């Protein structure tokens, strides 16, 4: 898990700088407006934890550029994970809060990294339990490949080819003190990645 990166992973290369992240989020925001022909009935839903902060950035861009306050919520998918019984320690639960009714709305799910697709699968199950949106779209900052489920993103910040032994870390100021995306390499620990 990311929290353990200090012990298990060593930094290999920077794939996005602070400026890159900002530019990419602006491009995604334009694509969201284009694709949805505006921002009516749109809800941003950030996946805990870094997706929540990326959703907040998009919301800020919409406020400045489009003069629209888009409702934003946070979604925790921990209780919907399919690997709970295989992890050594129980993953920590974070908050889920919706900005209002999601029925009939266009929900844009926001996450930092798209990898196996299992997080998105869990998020879709969680959303189904919370209501019935008219549409669900997916925005990710980085697509690193290695899908294990038939999942694709509608908005991709950057496609980064990786090997399975690597990890992509999206760092955000709010949690990590800096805005940067790095590729890390395993220096020890378990055999297989645990990123859901």
């Amino acid at each position, binding site marked *: 898990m990311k929290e353990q990166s200090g012990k298990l992973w060593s930094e290999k290369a920077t794939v996005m700088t602070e400026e890159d992240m900002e530019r990419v989020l602006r491009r995604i925001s334009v694509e969201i407006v284009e694709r949805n022909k505006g921002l009516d009935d749109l809800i941003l839903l950030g996946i805990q934890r870094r997706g929540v902060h990326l959703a907040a950035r998009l919301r800020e861009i919409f406020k400045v550029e489009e003069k629209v306050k888009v409702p934003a919520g946070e979604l925790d998918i921990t209780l919907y994970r399919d690997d709970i019984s295989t992890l050594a320690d*129980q*993953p920590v*639960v974070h908050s889920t809060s919706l900005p209002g009714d999601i029925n009939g709305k266009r929900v844009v799910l926001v996450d930092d990294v798209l990898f196996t697709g299992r997080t998105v699968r869990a998020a879709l199950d969680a959303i189904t339990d919370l209501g019935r949106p008219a549409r669900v779209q997916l925005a990710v900052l980085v697509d690193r490949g290695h899908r294990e489920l038939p999942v694709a993103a509608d908005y991709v910040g950057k496609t980064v080819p990786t090997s399975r032994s690597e990890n992509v870390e999206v760092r955000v100021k709010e949690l990590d003190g800096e805005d940067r995306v790095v590729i890390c390499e395993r220096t020890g620990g378990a055999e297989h990645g645990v990123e859901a």
Partner: protein
Amino acid sequence: MEWRHKDLITLEGWTREELHFFLEQADYMEELMNRPIKKVPALRGKMVVNCFFENSTRTRVSFELAEKMLSADVVNWSASGSSASKGETLRDTVWTLEAMGADAVVVRHGAVGVPDYLSKKLKRASVFNAGDGTNGHPTQALLDLHSARKRLGGLDGAKMAMIGDVLHSRVARSDIQAFRKMGVTVTLSGPATLMPEDTASLGVEYVSDAHEAARGADILYFLRIQRERQDDGLIPSIDEYHRRWGATDSLVSAASPNAVVMHPGPMNRGVEISSSVADGPKSVILGQVRSGVAVRMALLYLCLGGAR
């Protein structure tokens, strides 16, 4: 935080840091109760056996609700009509539970130490103490912490008056331990006949006058009075008890303006609590019921997780 507890027999070994982490996890579990579909798949495929060798309604229902909301398979093993009344030994019961493949056992028993015994015998399954004799009721303490903290914002430095039958109460024992661990000062009050002999060794003070105990308190905790105590000669009369130690408007007005009134239920209205206090603005008694489900979900989730 890495969760290191598999069972909950007593809160003795839990650190304050662990309690903080636990209560926060329970906050997120409580949010599930507001959803249109109050169910998540987190414990799918896990089997939880509720073994109640002693009567209980709210604790059993609360555990059952928590188990179902997490999608565990629930089996209720009730004492009456079970093999226990046919003379089965506890050890045979353990082996039966083990053979059934139980992942967790929730146990309430009239005898002190039964949950502890089960946890030592059951190799794989988690064991949760839902009350053993007059010893302890740790999930009640967790839910009380959760609802008091929710209303007061924080617990460190708060003052609590616990009033009533402390002597026969497992709730009192667990709550004193848990609230003190969170930095709460506890003062006991009630008839001296219903106090344990060594209140000092519990780290609490005892005052006979309930108004003195309640003065400036942030938490007023009223314990159940069983009517049989009057026949045992331990309380003067129900009326006098109510006047001197019951939750009346006058007693509650001695506490801090933002104080919360708590009761573990079921209430004896007109004995240890008046209806105007039980249904009044300071009462968090229904909040305690909600917290009960939330903390039991957090407990099941944290202790049942992980590869075994």
